[in-house]
């Protein structure tokens, strides 16, 4: 069973539906200690970084404990940003700190609208398991204003005015800035790649 963390940052219907279509069983833990029975953890979310405040120290400790035991973790959109040390969107809130770097706002200019909404391409930089069968240049659906920095953990980079990390992976911790549940076949393939890590 995969734990889908519901911290009220957006609607989880689509994420649930996509995992179900791939045959994965999900549950939504109500208390942090329920994570002990999870084979893997998914942190979805859209919206403001402040929403992660709901995931206080008890959740952070429980998630880090499971990750420490080797359980795969996938962050989606805001959930991916939360894997980093923090975000300038809510400077006072720490992230999980599993990946180094801080998230920041994209810069708008004449030809670059913020938020970044729509289909954009993945520039695949590393052949990690999370991008198995994902073609370089494949397009996926984004909707966000803040981004994670390009670091050694960046598996794919996307550019909207400036380059940012669109897929990250370090061992069994991975994250995607786009919405795999809304990105057609490419998105489903990324979720399938995550499920392979769970087995």
């Amino acid at each position: 069973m995969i734990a889908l963390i519901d911290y009220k940052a957006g609607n989880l219907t689509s994420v649930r539906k996509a995992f179900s279509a791939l045959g994965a069983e999900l549950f939504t833990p109500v208390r942090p200690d329920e994570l002990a029975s999870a084979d893997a953890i998914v942190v979805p979310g859209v919206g403001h970084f402040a929403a992660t405040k709901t995931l206080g120290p008890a959740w952070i400790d429980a998630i880090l404990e499971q990750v420490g035991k080797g359980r795969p973790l996938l962050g989606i959109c805001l959930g991916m940003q939360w894997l980093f040390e923090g975000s300038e969107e809510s400077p006072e809130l720490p992230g999980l700190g599993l990946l180094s770097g801080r998230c920041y706002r994209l810069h708008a200019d004449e030809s670059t609208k913020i938020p970044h909404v729509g289909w954009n391409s993945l520039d695949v930089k590393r052949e990690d398991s999370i991008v198995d069968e994902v073609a370089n240049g494949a397009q996926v659906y984004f909707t966000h204003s803040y981004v994670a920095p390009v670091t050694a953990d960046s598996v794919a980079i996307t550019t909207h005015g400036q380059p940012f990390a669109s897929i990250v992976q370090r061992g069994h911790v991975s994250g995607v800035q786009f919405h795999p549940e809304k990105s057609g076949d490419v998105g489903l393939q990324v979720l399938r790649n995550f499920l392979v890590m769970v087995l």
Partner: protein
Amino acid sequence: MLSKRIIACLDVRDGQVVKGINFEGLRTAGDPAELARRYNSEGVDELVILDITATLERRRALADTIRAVARELFIPLAVGGGIRTEADAAAAVEAGADKVSLNTAALSNPSLITTLAERYGSQAVLVAIDAKWEGDRAAVYVRSGSTPGDRDAVDWAREAEDRGAGEILLTSIDRDGTKVGFDCRLTAAVSQAVSIPVIASGGAGTLDHFVDVFTAGRADAALAASIFHYAETSVHSLKQHLRQHAIPVRL
């Protein structure tokens, strides 16, 4: 590079797509789920279900339609028409809509934009603006286009953004159904006034009309219904045409 989006609109009444349907190979003409699958396989970037039902059973029928369309669809789905309250929006979202489109309700109760943006995030809130030129001013009209509002389309788009709208769906009443091309002047005026994406609607008749609205019209996305329903052109051939004109698309 961010692609320009092609959005197909399904006008649905009592669970059936109205406006002309002329696809070969569809088992049930007018079945929204089947049409959605067809568009998805052709590479459409997003779907809008516009509910034009006017019965008391509307809400339940709409939820069933959304569920049927969303079941196997893994691209963004927006739902509009008849969403007047937070409860209407919640029903659409729970049925599988990723975005709700507010039109009349946003004008009469602008705080609904903020309420929904706080509950679901701005990315889930589309504000639909129907506009018509009155001299040099683009005036906002309420649905059916019969009652002129006292609002200016550009001002209203700015206010909608400030209140938390994530995108603007801009329909030209002058061009709707005419097939003489999108209103690029109107689209550019609104697109330059806001930083959120603007979806142009109304007037699509040829492939070059889409080229025009993405260049002169500065649109971020373009929406059409009958040009696709009648199979006058497929989404795929439209996107190939756009790519030949150096417009970034997802192919």
